[in-house]
């Protein structure tokens, strides 16, 4: 899945967004431009991790409703408003999975899987998929998010770090270790060698 990042913004864009947020804090009807701007991004983020399209749409609405309810508590930290929305979305997803109201799903395109294989210096074969699927679905949630955001959603490290509330260096180190771990697991699990 190729989700080009619309996350990063210039200082002017951040200033303009900040004004929109402040206006919405005073009058919730003015939240509209933020809703329009981020609706698709949040839906895609959710649908990437869910099996059912309708559930993804419902959760998207829920995320924006929560954002509106808690807008007065929002603090501008010099990063796009999207990072706050992603955190709400992530929290909503975890709630769904804990309550077993939705199926945690990992969605990937073959092209993305090939990219992941290149990163761990492995050749891609069709029969490689079941093994990779097993290894990925056994990762913990943060590890899975790192792989999804970096390889299946192609997000830059800065964005991955901000959404997962890590430093950029920490995100890089974690991903590096994770790839080593995947490589090791693949060798133990697969017959491709």
């Amino acid at each position, binding site marked *: *899945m190729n989700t080009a990042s619309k996350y990063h913004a210039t*200082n002017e864009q*951040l*200033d303009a967004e*900040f*004004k929109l947020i*402040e206006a919405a804090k*005073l009058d*919730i*009807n003015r*939240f*509209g431009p933020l*809703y*329009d701007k981020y*609706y*698709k991004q949040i*839906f895609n983020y959710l*649908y990437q991790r869910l*099996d059912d*399209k309708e559930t*993804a*749409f419902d959760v*998207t*609405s829920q995320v*924006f*409703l929560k954002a*509106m*309810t808690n807008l007065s*508590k929002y*603090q*501008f*930290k*010099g990063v796009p408003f999207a990072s706050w929305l992603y955190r709400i979305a992530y929290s909503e997803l975890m709630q769904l*999975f804990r309550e*077993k109201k939705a*199926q*945690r*799903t*990992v*969605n*990937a*395109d*073959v092209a993305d*899987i090939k990219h992941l294989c290149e990163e761990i210096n492995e050749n891609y074969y069709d029969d490689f*998929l079941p093994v990779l*699927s097993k290894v*990925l*679905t056994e990762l913990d949630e943060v590890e*899975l998010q790192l792989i999804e955001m970096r390889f299946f959603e192609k997000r830059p490290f800065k964005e991955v770090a901000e959404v997962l*509330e890590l*430093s950029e260096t920490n995100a890089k180190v974690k991903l590096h270790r994770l790839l080593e771990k995947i490589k090791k697991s693949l060798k133990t699990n697969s017959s491709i060698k």
Partner: protein
Amino acid sequence: MKTKFTVDRPKVNDDEIEKRKNFDDLVKKFKDQSLADAKAKQRSGINIKKLMYTSIILGVTVVCYVTLKQVLTTNNHQKNTSNTSETSTKLEELKSTKFIQPIEKKSNYSSYKINAQKGGEIKHHTQSVIKIPAKAFTNEQGIEITGDVEILYREMHTIPEILASGIPMRYDSAGIKQSFESAGMIEIKGMQNGKEIKLKRDKKIEINMASQKTGDRFNLYYLDTIAKQWQCLGKDKIVDENQKSNQEKNNLQNEISDNKKQKELLNKQINAIDLKIAEIQSKVNNNKTEIEIPKKPTAPIAASKQRKQFELDVDYKEFPELKAFEGCVFEVGEENKHYSNEFNQIKWNDIIIAQGTKPNQNYTLILTAGYRKEKLIVYPVFTGKNLEHAQQSYQKKLDNYNTIVTRKMEEEQKRKDAIEREIKKMEEERIALNKKLRAEENARSMSNLYAEMNDGKNYLSEGVRRIFEINKFGIYNSDCAKPFPTHTTTEGVFMQQNIELIPASVFLINHSDNMMWTYSTKETEKLKYDPKKRNSLIAFIQNKLFWCDTLAFSQSTKKREKTIFYFKEIKNEEVSAVGLKKLLNL
């Protein structure tokens, strides 16, 4: 539920996503939910109250515990350091109950009067300008305010000023501990009749803050005192002060000069009034009329049948007061216990009358017969017609006496009233002049203060103007968050001679870069600083400040992972922005 893995799942196209957007429905849901939440809050009001009372009791308990602990700490010279973390935790709790702890007792707000309907422009002594729109205020109930309102405003620019204000400068973000480098902080609030007022949602106050720090690395922050954290509001607009015309600088010089002249004039007027008041007051002390009051006449006494009386031939030249008793006889007083009928049988050669024991009431009669000499206390009394005459004469004299006394008293009261009226008028005039003088002195002293705190420079001489709009009263800060130093880490132990100090907060001051970082007690277990810089520490313990100066800091004793820093108490007179500025040499 096991995680599912899918490959090349069909994507949802943009049109479908676009069609599913429904902002109106979302707003409706939001409003319904807000209403439901409000009703739920109303229902649980009593529980909230209970919770509040419980919190208050808990808070008071914590304060009492901490105060007791602090007293014990000070008295115990041999305190075991293992108690430190427990006490620290309690002090942390105390600290959390008071988010802003001003060190300087004296309030340093400037007060400005603004007509709420007209709005207006305030020129602060730092050259900052506050533009207030018309009809901008409401009361607590949201009703628009009319009439005059009081705007209380202050600015803090330097480390001593910020330290004295007690406003926290910590800004921890994404797990990184940071402290603010301020390009100027302001606090603004509004009052009417002693009650706080609010700014209308659609009205904004423009703050045009004079700042000596140039550069656009500063963001604007608002201090949320309820959430106890700074909120970033974005960038302020910067106007370079050096590009301004000299006109404004000249205006300031003229303003200061006018202020000086005005102050001198007011002082002269007050001195003149003081002299006049003193002069009038001396009149009060000499408030005697020329009317002389005669001696109060003595009422004639009727002779008693039971007591013996004498008739005497009195020389009225010698006893002029007895002239009033003309026709009187002298009655032997009861006090003459030695008196007997024998006295009437003896032929006395000589009888002398002298002053008695009660002036103008009785006399001493000295009776001599050969070697025998007797003294008798006698009273002038009247009998028959003489008594009537004496009473008539007495009444006349008494009437005359009373008339004179009343006239004198009336005259003196009139004079007293006139003098008091004059003094009251003078004092009112003096109060008005003093008020004016205080206002002038305040403006002047604030100008001096800023000049003093900035090496004689005022805010017009250099720097920029930082312009921003605010939509609520409170504390705003133009800041740049700076991470804590990372060079050396140590566990700080703070001593004053042999006593270990357990401060609520410790301020690390880097004198080389003019930076300050705040550590809580717990955090001083990992005190980080740059040893290549000139550092000092200030510890805040309840209402007292302690200082480990740059020399003491550099000479601190290192014991394994711990470093012992020696502090001395800062004198009360130095616990102010100006005092700290001099002490810290910042």
